[in-house]
C-alpha cells in the first residue's frame, strides 16, 4: 500500500471480511462529516466543569442542558421553544432524531477538557460539543472541535479572544465579551459616578484579565476617566490584601476588579474589609466596580456585593416572555432560578438544534451556514444576531448592581440598565479582536 488511506484499509478489511471499517474522525463513505448520526438518535456532548472551583457553575449548566434536551424531545413545558422567534423546533428531537447526551468533566483545565471532548467525539459519537466555564477551556475545546469537524457551542466564556484572535469557523459564542462589558458599563458608570474619576485596576494576570482590563480602560477613558494604575495579580492569589492596601493612598477613587470566580470573591471581600467603600477620596465616595458578574459567584461574596456595579449576560429577573418562560420551566424543575451560565447554555443548545432543523442536516458546514447571520428573538436577550464574520452573538447587555435589600438567597443582583445592542457593537476588525482567522467550516474531512 503506497498510500495509507482509510479507504484503502476499508477495502482491504472488507475483502478480508473482518467487517466494515468506519473512520471516526473523518469522512465515512456514508456521510460527509464526523459522527453523522445513523440511528434514531443524535448525541450531544455537554462538557462542563464538574470538579474544581467552578463545579457549581458547571452543575447549573448541566441542569440547563438537561432541560433543553427534555424540551427538544417534547417533554416539559417547552420553555423558550415557545417564545423563540424561529418555529422550526417542534419537540420531536432534532430532524426527527431523539436527542441523547453525554457529559464530561473539564476540570477547568484545557487538557482535561480536550480529553473529555475527544472521548465524546471518538467514543460516544457526539456531533456537537458545548459547555465550558472559562475562556481558556472554551478556546482549547473550540480548537479541538475545529480540527475534529464538529460544532462547538461555547458556554460561559467572556474573553475577547474566543471570537477574536482565537475564533474558529466551527465555534459559536452566545455569551457576551469583555469589550461589550466595557461598552455597556462605561455610560452607566459615567452617569452614576461622574466624568472626573480616577480608576485603579486590579487584573487577573492572564489573557482573560488582560483583555477585559483593556476593554474597560478604553471604554471608561473614552468617558473622561483617568486610569491611575493597573496591577496584575497572580491567578493563585487567595488573599488580595496586599494588592488592595496600596489602593487607599493611590489617589484613586474607583477600584475596578478584573477578576472572576474565586478571585473576584476574595478581592472584593478584601476591598470591602479595608473599608474602601466608606472612604471619601477627592471629595467623592470611593466606588468599586466588578465588570463581569456571575450571580452564583456573587453569592460567595455575601453582603459585600451590595451596590456594586457590573455587567452580566442575562438575569432571571428579566420580564420578557422568553426569560419568564425559561425561569418558569427551570424553576419548576429544580426549585431555584437559573444562572446566566444556565441561560446561555440552554439557548446555545436550542440555537444549535434550530440551525440543524433549518439546514436539514447535522453537517457542521450546514449548521454553520444556518447560524451565520441568523437573527432571532424571544431568547431572553431581545433581538439577537449571530454575526457571520466572527460567530459572536450581538444583543443587549445588562448592567447590574448588587441588590441592597435581597428578598431571597437568589435575589443578589438587580438590573439597572439594559444597554442596547447598538451601543456594544464593534467592527469585525476592531484592534482588540484582531489577528487570527475564522478559517473554513470543517466537517471533518
Amino acid at each position: 500500500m503506497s498510500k495509507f488511506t482509510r479507504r484503502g484499509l476499508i477495502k482491504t478489511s472488507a475483502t478480508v471480511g473482518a467487517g466494515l471499517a468506519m473512520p471516526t474522525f473523518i469522512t465515512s463513505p456514508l456521510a460527509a462529516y464526523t459522527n453523522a448520526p445513523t440511528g434514531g438518535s443524535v448525541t450531544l456532548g455537554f462538557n462542563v466543569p464538574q470538579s474544581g472551583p467552578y463545579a457549581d457553575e458547571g452543575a447549573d449548566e448541566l441542569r440547563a442542558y438537561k432541560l433543553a434536551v427534555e424540551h427538544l424531545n417534547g417533554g416539559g413545558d417547552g420553555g423558550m421553544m415557545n417564545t423563540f422567534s424561529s418555529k422550526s423546533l417542534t419537540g420531536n428531537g432534532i430532524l426527527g432524531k431523539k436527542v441523547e447526551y453525554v457529559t464530561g468533566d473539564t476540570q477547568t483545565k484545557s487538557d482535561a477538557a480536550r480529553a473529555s471532548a475527544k472521548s465524546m467525539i471518538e467514543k460516544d459519537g457526539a456531533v456537537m460539543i458545548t459547555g465550558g466555564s472559562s475562556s481558556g477551556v472554551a478556546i482549547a475545546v473550540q480548537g479541538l472541535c475545529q480540527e475534529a469537524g464538529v460544532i462547538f457551542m461555547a458556554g460561559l466564556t467572556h474573553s475577547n479572544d474566543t471570537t477574536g484572535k482565537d475564533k474558529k469557523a466551527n465555534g459559536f459564542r452566545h455569551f457576551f465579551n469583555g469589550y461589550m462589558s466595557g461598552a455597556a458599563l462605561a455610560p452607566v458608570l459615567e452617569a452614576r459616578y461622574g466624568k472626573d474619576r480616577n480608576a485603579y485596576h486590579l487584573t487577573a494576570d492572564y489573557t482573560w484579565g488582560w483583555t477585559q482590563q483593556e476593554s474597560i480602560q478604553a471604554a471608561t477613558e473614552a468617558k473622561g476617566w483617568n486610569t491611575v494604575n493597573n496591577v496584575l495579580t497572580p491567578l493563585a492569589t487567595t488573599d488580595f490584601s496586599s494588592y488592595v492596601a496600596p489602593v487607599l493612598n493611590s489617589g484613586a477613587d474607583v477600584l475596578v476588579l478584573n477578576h472572576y470566580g474565586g478571585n473576584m470573591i476574595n478581592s472584593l471581600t478584601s476591598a470591602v474589609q479595608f473599608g474602601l467603600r466608606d472612604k471619601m477620596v477627592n471629595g467623592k465616595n470611593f466606588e468599586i466596580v466588578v465588570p463581569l458578574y456571575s450571580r452564583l459567584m456573587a453569592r460567595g461574596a455575601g453582603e459585600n456585593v451590595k451596590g456594586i456595579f457590573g455587567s452580566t449576560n442575562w438575569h432571571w429577573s428579566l420580564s420578557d416572555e422568553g426569560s419568564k418562560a425559561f425561569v418558569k420551566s427551570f424553576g419548576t424543575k429544580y426549585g431555584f432560578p437559573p444562572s446566566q451560565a444556565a441561560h446561555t447554555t440552554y439557548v446555545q443548545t436550542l440555537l444549535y438544534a434550530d440551525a440543524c432543523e433549518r439546514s436539514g442536516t447535522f453537517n457542521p458546514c450546514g449548521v454553520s451556514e444556518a447560524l451565520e447571520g441568523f437573527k432571532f428573538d424571544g431568547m431572553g436577550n431581545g433581538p439577537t444576531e449571530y454575526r457571520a464574520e466572527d460567530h459572536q452573538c450581538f444583543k443587549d447587555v445588562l448592567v447590574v448592581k448588587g441588590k441592597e435589600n435581597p428578598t431571597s438567597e437568589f435575589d443578589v443582583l438587580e438590573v439597572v440598565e439594559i444597554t442596547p445592542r447598538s451601543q456594544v457593537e464593534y467592527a469585525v476588525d476592531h484592534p482588540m479582536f484582531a489577528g487570527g482567522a475564522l478559517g473554513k467550516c470543517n466537517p471533518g474531512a
Partner: protein
Amino acid sequence: MNTISKADMKTLFFVAIIALLAPFILNPFPTDSGLAQFNAGYPDLMQRFAIYGILAIGFNILFGLTGYLSFGHAAFLGVGSYSAVWMFKLLSMNIIPALILSVIVAGLFSLLIGFISLRRSGIYFSILTLAFAQMSFALAYSVLTPLTNGETGLQITLNDPRILAAENVSGNLPVTTLFGLEMRDTWAMQVGAWDFQFNIGYYICAIFLLLAFYLSIRIFRSPFGMMLRAVKTNQNRLNYTGINTRPYTLAAFVISGMYAGLAGGLMASMDPLAGAERMQWTASGEIVLMTILGGTGTLLGPVMGAGFIKYFENIFSKINDTVLHGWFSWMPDGLENIIVWVLHLFTGKGWHLTLGIMFMLIVIFLPGGLMEGMSRIGNWWKRRKGDDDAESKSTTTAAE
C-alpha cells in the same frame, strides 16, 4: 553491557502484546450495552495510557531507583509540549523534529534544574523541584504568554509560518503527521456488536512506550542502574568510599526529564496544544501518585498506575445520573432512585471521591501498589492450581 534476561524479555513481550491488542482488550463490552461506558478503547484514551506510561516509566528511573522524589516533573512534560507545538508552528507538522526538540529541550531544562536541586536530598530536594516547577507554571501562565499563550494554551493557527510545509490551501488547520501518516487516522473494525478502533497516533505512542520500556529495562539491569540503587540504599556509605554520586543521580534526573519531555512531545503530537496547567504541581503530584500506586521501583507498575488514574479520570467522570438510571431501570422505581442516589456520589462529578478511596484502599492493603496486587493474584492462582493438582492426585489415589 549485559544482555536482557529471559524474565525481562517475557515482561517486554507481555507489554508489547498488550499494547498491540489494546484496542481489543480495552473494549470488552458491546457498543450498545450499558457497560460500554466502561470501554476505554478509543484513540484519545489509549494514547493517554501510552503517553502517561512513558512519563511514569521515566519518573520511576529517578524515584524508583535513586529514591529522589521529584515534585516538579510536570515542568519537563510542559516544556516538551511547548517545544513540540513550536516546531509545528515554525517548521512543519511532522512529529519527528517536534519530538526531537521536545526531548532535547526537556533534557537541557532538567539538566539545569537537576544540577541545582541535586545539591540537596530528601524532602529538601523535593521542595526545590516543586519550587522550580511552580515557578515555571506561574511564568508560563502569565509573563511568558508570548511564548506559551498563557491561560489559553499554545495552539497551531492558520497563520503560522511552517517553513517546511507546503502552503495550506484548505483553509483548515493542518494535522500532525509522521511523513504523511496522519496521527488522527483511525479505522474501525466492527465485529458483531463490538466496534474496535485502530488509530495511527496510538500505535506510534505504543511504539515509543515499548522503546521507553525496553530502555528502562536496560537501565534497571545495567551497572548504572545498580549504582543508582546503591544511592537509594546508602548514599553516605558511597560518599565515604570516595564515589561521587552526583553525576549518577544527575544522569538519572536528566534521563527521566527526557522521558517526560518525550511524553510531552507525544502529547502535543497527538493533539497540538500545550497548556500551562500541564506544569502545575497537581500534574507533578499525579506523576508521583501514578508511580507509587503502580508500584515504585518495579518495571511494569508505573505504567499500570498511569493507566489506572487516567481510566478513572476519563471513564468515571462521564457516568452521569442518566447513565446510572439507564443501568438500573429494571429495578423498582424507589430502589432504583436510592441506588442511583448512592452511586452518583461516586461517579460523574463525584469521580474524585472514588479516586481518593481507591488511593487509600490500594496503599492500605497493597503496600507495593498494583504490582503487589498482581503478584498476589499470581501467587494465589499458582497456589490454587497447586492445590487443585494435589487434590486431584489425592482423589485419584483414593479412587484406586
